[in-house]
């Protein structure tokens, strides 16, 4: 007998409860049930706890200038790789001639640079950002660059995991989910040497959220 049939056969013989002991309902903690301004406030607080940077902007057109300002503050001006999401292409990049941008998404090109991407949602439960793969979004953009800027519209903030799944399913198109759903909770870090947190393990050492009204 092949392994599959043998394992499944064994499990079938050991099955008890007949599938009748279903689990119903769902359980959501209060931290994942905030709405409106309270939800946005909790998102800000949780994102800060995860060491994310956050700029609040009233218009999309302010994004390029803000990225230039933040990079200037850090004291570095790497090439900014802009993800293919349509709302990013239409930003007024010409306003910031000092910031060089690129559309290159190749793994070597993304290595160690700054990048800007959109996201599918953000969770007020934890402060994390949700990035999903699709034609306009390479998964590697959230991992290979040193500085990751994420454009987030206020309306994209959801209360918790339940909202994340809903947003991810929508982005999956005709399938259940996109290939990759990455829920990113701030810069990459490790505590593997003497249990001391060090930022920038394998992924970005900085994650900066550009929170835009609307």
């Amino acid at each position, binding site marked *: 007998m092949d*392994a599959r049939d*043998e*394992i*499944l056969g*064994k*499990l079938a013989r*050991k*099955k008890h*409860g007949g*599938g009748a*002991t279903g*689990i119903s309902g769902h*359980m959501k*903690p*209060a*931290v*994942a049930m905030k709405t409106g301004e309270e939800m946005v406030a909790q998102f800000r607080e949780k994102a800060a706890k995860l060491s994310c940077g956050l700029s609040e902007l009233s218009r999309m057109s302010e994004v390029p200038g803000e990225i230039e300002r933040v990079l200037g503050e850090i004291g570095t001006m790497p090439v900014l790789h802009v993800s*293919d999401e349509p709302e990013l292409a239409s930003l007024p990049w010409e306003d910031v001639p000092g910031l060089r941008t690129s559309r290159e998404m190749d*793994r070597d090109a993304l*290595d160690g640079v700054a990048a800007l991407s959109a996201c599918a949602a953000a969770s007020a439960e*934890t*402060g994390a950002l949700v990035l999903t*793969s*699709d*034609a306009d*979004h*390479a*998964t*590697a953009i*959230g*991992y*290979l660059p040193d500085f990751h800027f994420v454009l987030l519209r206020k309306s994209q903030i959801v209360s*918790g*995991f*339940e909202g*994340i*799944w809903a947003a991810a399913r929508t982005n999956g198109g005709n*399938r*259940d989910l*996109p*290939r*990759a*759903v*990455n*829920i990113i*909770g701030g*810069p*990459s*870090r*490790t*505590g*593997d*040497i*003497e*249990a001391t947190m*060090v930022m*920038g*393990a*394998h*992924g970005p050492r900085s994650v900066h959220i550009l929170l835009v009204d609307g």
Partner: protein
Amino acid sequence: MTPPNDQHAPEMHVTSERFSENARHALDDKVLQGGLFIFAKGFTALREIGISQVPEFGDMRDRARDVKNHVLENLGDYLKQFEERVIANGGRVHWARNASEANEIIGRLCAEVNAKTVVKSKSMVTEELELNPHLEKQGIEVFESDLGEYIIQLRKEKPFHIVGPALHLTKEQVSDTFYEAHQRYGRTEKVTEKEALVREARIVLRERFKQADVGITGANFLVAETGSIALVTNEGNADLSATLPKHHIAVTGIEKIVPTLEDLGLFLRLLPRSALGLDTANYLSLYTGPKRDSDPDGPETFDIVLVDNGRSDMLGSEFQDMLRCIRCGACLNGCPVFTSVGGQAYGSVYSGPMGAVWTPALAGITHAANLPNASTFCGKCEEVCPVRIPLPNLMRHWREREFEKHYTPTGQRWGMGAWRWIAGKPALYRLASSMGGRVLRAMARKGWVKKLPGFAGGWTEMRDLKAPEGGSFLEQYEKGRRS
């Protein structure tokens, strides 16, 4: 549990027979003892603070227990649903009865694509399978990418802790290891600070990620309704492993399944809080099938290896509850034995209370009897377990198996038999307890016994024994004393 001569019996190599000896070394190791302090005090405190902020935590644990129990009762059905969804999404599912089969499947998948190098993210199941030596024998170079796992791979050690594999080492030890190992990449300067060590590993491993032909990950959870695997890390290494190489293989145990995304949310709320008191891990990711036609990146193939290796034997046995384990490490951090001797003393990739139950199931009770015995049954592990596994009871069941099979040491076995016999004869019991008291009084100097013979000598190795004063309680009670 498994009949002898079963060619598909579970396999795992352990050195748990040497627990006492290993424990002694660990207790003498000052550096290790310093590291253990972090688990006993730091991680436990972080967990307590983290869960105190979620008043529903207890109810969430109950529900997680119920969801897992439901899944275990219907495991075959959920696995079939999962398999169907993976295939519909363009992936493949492979089934392995034991370690040899799993290694053979993974080896074959790597050979099919002429893999020269493999990059891996931390997976306890592949540690259990001893996958790396198997692939290396095939001429494949394997790079662990979780920083802790990478360090112990370079040092050829077993993981110290399921969540923090290298936390028994100092930065000086890591510095020496990197200095030696990284010369081949042209890194000749010895770095010593933690930040610099992390940076160096990042630079070295970044190239491995980019060059690897195959990425191998574990899976913290499998979602039946979508055919997705869920990966939880803080470093982002699992995502790079699942994204950059052309081929992605996920290796995991058949018990890791959850029915729906909503259920997954529940476990993602429990896992980081139980491990480190965190609201969330840095990266929680779901991967569903290979790269879609329009996707700009992602692997061309997506293979899942579902490993049994003893798990189906545990199902329906007195050890079934153990299959709820989500590998958070809370039971290790809370365990007074683990935090005294560390993970290496257990001689198994699974250590602490969860390891004391898993290890005998995988390696056999004859090889691993020390582990369920090296517990005071203090119950801290059960108190902190997010899925409410009754760990002391399960360890006790292993002691029962050991006793039934006559593996219990002869002296102890005889002693328990004699005790049961005496306890059934009250007059003899009264006499024996009075005599016992008298013997101890005779052995004592100024009321204290400094050395006991035979088996009881273990007591006086570490402490004195205060001899009883006067007759036994029952003796005095019989004479009419009431207060």
